[in-house]
Each structure stands twice: as C-alpha cells, then as structure tokens.
C-alpha cells in the first residue's frame, strides 16, 4: 500500500512542494480559526419559538444524584415523552469551564456565588418568572440573591451546608470536644483525610486562620495557600466525584472528608457511625439553583423544568431524602425530626446568617483563588 502511494507521488511531488502545500493549507486554516472569534450570545432574544415547536430535548448540566425523576416529576407530567438528558458537573468551576469551552446545555445548576461569573461570561439570560407559577412560593431573600441588575438570572432551589464528615469510632472525642475546622487539618489523622477538589479549601483555611474566607486579598490568599501547602501532606486524595468519596468513606479508606449533608445521610443509612462537624469558625453554606443558557432552543421547556424543581413536591422529596433545604417556603421541614433538624437546621430561618455559617458568594478575584488552589495541588504532587 505504502509503495503504491509512493509510486503515484514520487515523480511529481517532492518533499519541498508537499511541505509548502501543507503549510499553506495549515496557515489558511489557522487564520480562519483566529479570525472567527466565538460570538458569545449576550443579548436576550425578544421572541421565542412556541413551546410546541421547540425541539424538547432539554439538556441539563446537573450534579450527580439530582437527575432522579422524583426531583422533576411535574416536568415529566407536562412532557411525558421528552425526558431531559443529563450531563454531570463535578464543581461550579468545572461547569463554568466546560461551558466556556463550548458545551451548550439548556439549563445549568450552579450555586449562588457563581451567578455573577455566568453573567460575566455572557452565556446566560434572565428567567421570565411569570412563566413559573411556583416562583412566588420561593423565599424572597434567596430569590433576591439570584438577581443581577434587577434581572432574575438564577432561580434559588436547594440549599445546605458544607462541613467535615467524620467517623465517630475512629476520631478521638477530645479532638472534637471544641469543634473546629482544626479537625480537617489534624496531623493525627494523616492519610485518612479527603478534601474536595475545589477552591473552597482556601475559603475554609481563610476562616480557620481568622480571615474572611470569601474575600481575601492577595496577601491573605497567599497566607491561606501556604497554610494548605503545609497541611496537604496529610490529605489522602482530593475527591472529584461524590460517589467515589462516599465509597472511600464507607470502605474505611478515609475518616474525615469535606462533605454535604447528603453524604452524612448516605453514610448514616449504611450504618456507619458518622458525625457532621459544627466548627466554631462556622460551616460553609450554599444555595444552588438554575441558570438559563442564552442560546437555548428550549426556552419554555427550560422554564417548565425550573418550575418543576421549584415545586413544593420536589422540595419535600429533597428534604426527606438528602436532608437539604429548599427555598420553597411551603414545605414542611418538621418531618425530619428534632435530632436531624439540630444537625442540619433547615427549618431555621436564620440558618444561613453570619457568623454561624458563611454563605457561598461571588469572589471577584476568583482567578487568583483558582491559581492558588492549582498550586496547592501541584505542590502536593511535586
């Protein structure tokens, strides 16, 4: 085969010509690629295709575990033959990066601290809340947190806490007698600690060192970074998938992990003796919800989906199964029972207030945080 090709080519195309043609073609391609800057649609479309003419193949960029039908039943009822398609995100930063790189879902489920980043990127459009009957049932304070320039870019839905999950049978009670994030950095448990692979570790370090973790300047950030670098040798792995972390926790590979309350529920249900830290420096907390991509072809489907998520039915299911809060004010948290509500005060209207917890918020110098976190990881490996 190679000989045949060579026989055809040899008399007429020598190597120099070949390279010249290739270079010309390559240069043209490169120029074309550079000239065509990806237009990021920022403007809101004035009119929308009627719902019946929408493709209906709703693409949802979602956290694993949130694809369950129980969380979007009203949508399934409205469009029984058009189940949404899910792709999973591992962190807010990863989701943003993937969309920046060209992935175009219809709806994404980020958290409140990142809404401004999504708007800055120019890929989202405001929701039309008049299309969502359930919107009026949502907590107005949380809804206000989803507005930018008076426009509702974000529908607040699930909310909860971030803290350290730990095995009570493996951790010395003295180390949690005065609960503190120090457990997360305790050298005594070297090799048994797992951190989430996200810049929130810098935030935690910041609060632990007595700073405002979400608003550190360069000097403070450097301090938090150096602190993490000095502690990273005790960390066994950085988890990216919640299920992997749960498995490692259940298998006894780790005793202390960055976790959400759903992880506590999952471990507790498996019969593991676990506790969820309430550090004196404050837990982190989050409100997550939905943003609508600017160039969605499923405008009305997307609204129906967000409306389904905003329903009391979804909120109640989320509460009872993951112990997460929901911004729908008509749900009844008392079903969790006193003990669980003490652990996760989802019924307490002041639960998300400072300084008890530090709610996830926009970090203007997020690039510096990201860089610092990358350096912590590289330093751990190098």
């Amino acid at each position: 085969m190679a000989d045949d090709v060579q026989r055809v080519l040899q008399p007429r195309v020598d190597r120099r010509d070949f390279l010249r043609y290739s270079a010309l073609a390559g240069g043209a391609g490169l120029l074309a690629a550079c000239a065509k800057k990806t237009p990021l649609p920022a403007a809101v479309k004035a009119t929308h295709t009627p719902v019946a003419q929408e493709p209906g193949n709703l693409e949802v960029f979602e956290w694993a575990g949130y694809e369950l039908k129980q969380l979007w039943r009203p949508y399934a009822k409205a469009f029984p033959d058009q189940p949404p398609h899910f792709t999973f995100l591992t962190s807010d930063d990863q989701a943003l990066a993937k969309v920046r790189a060209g992935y175009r879902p219809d709806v994404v489920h980020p958290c409140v601290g990142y809404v401004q980043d999504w708007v800055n990127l120019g890929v989202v459009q405001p929701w039309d809340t008049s299309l969502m009957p359930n919107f009026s049932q949502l907590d107005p304070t949380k809804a206000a947190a989803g507005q930018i320039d008076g426009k509702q870019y974000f529908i607040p839905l699930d909310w909860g806490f971030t803290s350290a999950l730990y095995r009570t049978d493996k951790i010395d009670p003295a180390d949690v007698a005065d609960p503190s994030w120090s457990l997360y950095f305790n050298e005594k448990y070297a090799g048994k600690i797992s951190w989430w692979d996200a810049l929130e570790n810098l935030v935690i370090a910041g609060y632990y060192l007595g700073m405002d973790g979400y608003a550190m300047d360069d000097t403070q950030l450097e301090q938090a970074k150096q602190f993490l670098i000095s502690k990273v040798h005790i960390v066994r792995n950085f988890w990216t998938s919640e299920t992997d972390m749960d498995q490692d926790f259940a298998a006894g590979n780790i005793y202390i992990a960055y976790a959400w309350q759903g992880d506590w529920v999952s471990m507790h249900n498996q019969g593991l003796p676990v506790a969820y830290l309430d550090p004196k420096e404050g837990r982190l907390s989050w409100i997550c919800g939905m943003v609508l991509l600017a160039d969605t072809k499923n405008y009305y489907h997307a609204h129906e989906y967000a409306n389904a998520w905003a329903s009391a039915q979804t909120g109640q299911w989320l509460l009872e199964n993951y112990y997460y809060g929901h911004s729908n004010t008509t749900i009844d948290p008392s079903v969790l029972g006193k003990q669980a509500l003490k652990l996760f005060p989802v019924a307490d209207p002041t639960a998300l207030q400072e300084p008890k917890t530090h709610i996830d918020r926009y970090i203007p110098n997020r690039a510096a945080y990201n860089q610092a976190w990358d350096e912590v990881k590289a330093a751990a490996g190098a």
Partner: protein
Amino acid sequence: MAVATPSEAPAAADAARPGRFRSWLAAVGILSPPVSWLVLFFLVPIGIVAAYSVGALSFFPGDQALSLGGWERFFRGSIYLSLFWKSVRISLTVSVVSVLLAYPIAFFLALGAKKRKYVLLLVIIAPFLTSYLLRVLAFKVILGDEGLINTFFYSLHMRSPGHPIPWLLYSQFTVMLVLAYVWVPFVALPIFVALENLDQSLLEGASDLGASRWQTFWRVTFPLSVPGVMAAFVFVFIPTIGEFVTPLLVGGTRGFMYGNAIADLFGPGFDWQTGSVLALFLLAVTAALALVFGRFLQIRSVAAE
C-alpha cells in the same frame, strides 16, 4: 513517513505534460484527506493553543493581551517544571518495568508458544475488553485499607487492623502499578513482532557454531529485538508523561502528575494561558524525544517490517 521520502524523480519528466497533470491531480486527491485531517485536527488546534499561551486568545472574552508572561513564569522555577520532572520519572519507571515484564511474555509467545501463540495473545489482551474504570475499581478493592492485601496481612497478624500499608492505595506506587498493568500487553506487541520476524536460521546457525542458549539469546536474539524493545519503550513513555486519568483515580494527592495540572488549568483552574504553556512544553519535549528515538534507534525499520 513513506510519503515524505525524498524522491529520486528523473528530471526528464517534462516529456509527458498531460500525464504530469493527471498524476498531479492524483497526488492532490490522495494527499488532501490526510493532510487536511492533520491540518484541521492537529496543526490548527496547536496554533490555537499557541495563541492562548501568548495571550492572543483568552478565557474571558475581551481579556486578550499579548505577553510572554506565561512562558516566563513557567521557566522561572515554577512548581510545574518540577512536576514535569516527576512525571518523567514516573513514566520512565513505568516504561522500564513494562518492558521488563513484557519481554518474557513476548519471547514465550513468539518463540515458545508455537501454534497457540495467537490464542494466547488474545488471552493476554482479554482483560482489556472490560471497561478501564471497572479495572481501576478492582484495584481499589484489592489495594484499599480494608482491601484484599491489607486484610490478608491483618489475618496473619503481620499488621494490626487500623494500620494498613499506607502506600498501597492513593500513592505514586499505585499510579505506577496501574499504568504498568495497563501497558504491558501493548508493550508486548512490538517486541513480539520483532521476535517473530527473527530469522530462525540465525538461531540454528548459532547453535551449530556451539553457542549455548544463553549466549544465543544475548548475542543473537536480544540484539535483533532491540528495535522492538525501543519501539515498545517509546510506545509507553510518550503517552504516560501526559497521563492524567490514572493519577486522578488512584493517585491521591501524591500521585498528581503533570497531565493533571494541564487538565486542571484548562478545567476548573480557568487559566488557559498557563495550561497552554504546559501543553506546548509537553508537546515539544515528546516531539523531540520521538525525533531522537526515530532517528537513532531506527524505529522505522520495525514499522516497515
């Protein structure tokens, strides 16, 4: 490779003009699919990555600013450079170990297994019909703190429960173990090909001239299989320097490699400029290595066989 070989075209080709045009057309026809493929999916992306590395393109629209800052930071003693050397060390170890493990397998298959050799080859490759993730999960079951190996030691009272061998899972060792496991069958193939093409009469000749089996191996078989060994080595070494999936799954904090840094910078790190610098540096080093190996070790002679 064959296409770029210098032609020895006779200068007297002017004679047949229509023929010349036709073969020119044929050349363009045959060349254009592979060339445009390479240009579209290799050269253009590299050009774009290069543009990112000097700030001609940027992550956030409107942030473009031409600068060599990314390159400067990279070479001025950044942690990424030391991470690169660490990856080189890991992949050198993996390549050497895989070749050492694969050689006896290839030797047996090529020279000892006779008729059954292709069946056996299939058996070796069989595990690769299952998903990579499943196999890695199996490694976790074996190497975990409550896994097969550790519980075995607990039961023999060689280690007390709660004090597992710390470096079995989530360590550089795990990364190297899994990578070597993944690559051994692929490494065995080029060595197998080199040994299979061995002229058997040379071995007979050696034995006729009184060489022992050991001498025959060292003075005839092994030297003739060196191109296969080198090809196998490069075959593992180059892709594993940029490896990132295995370290992500079983490497833990210490198994973090250069490829993970690149993935992070392009992913959650949002720093496409530094990521591009890292990626281009890796590309340059591997291209240089490929050239060196290609030129001095005559891999092409193996490929042509």
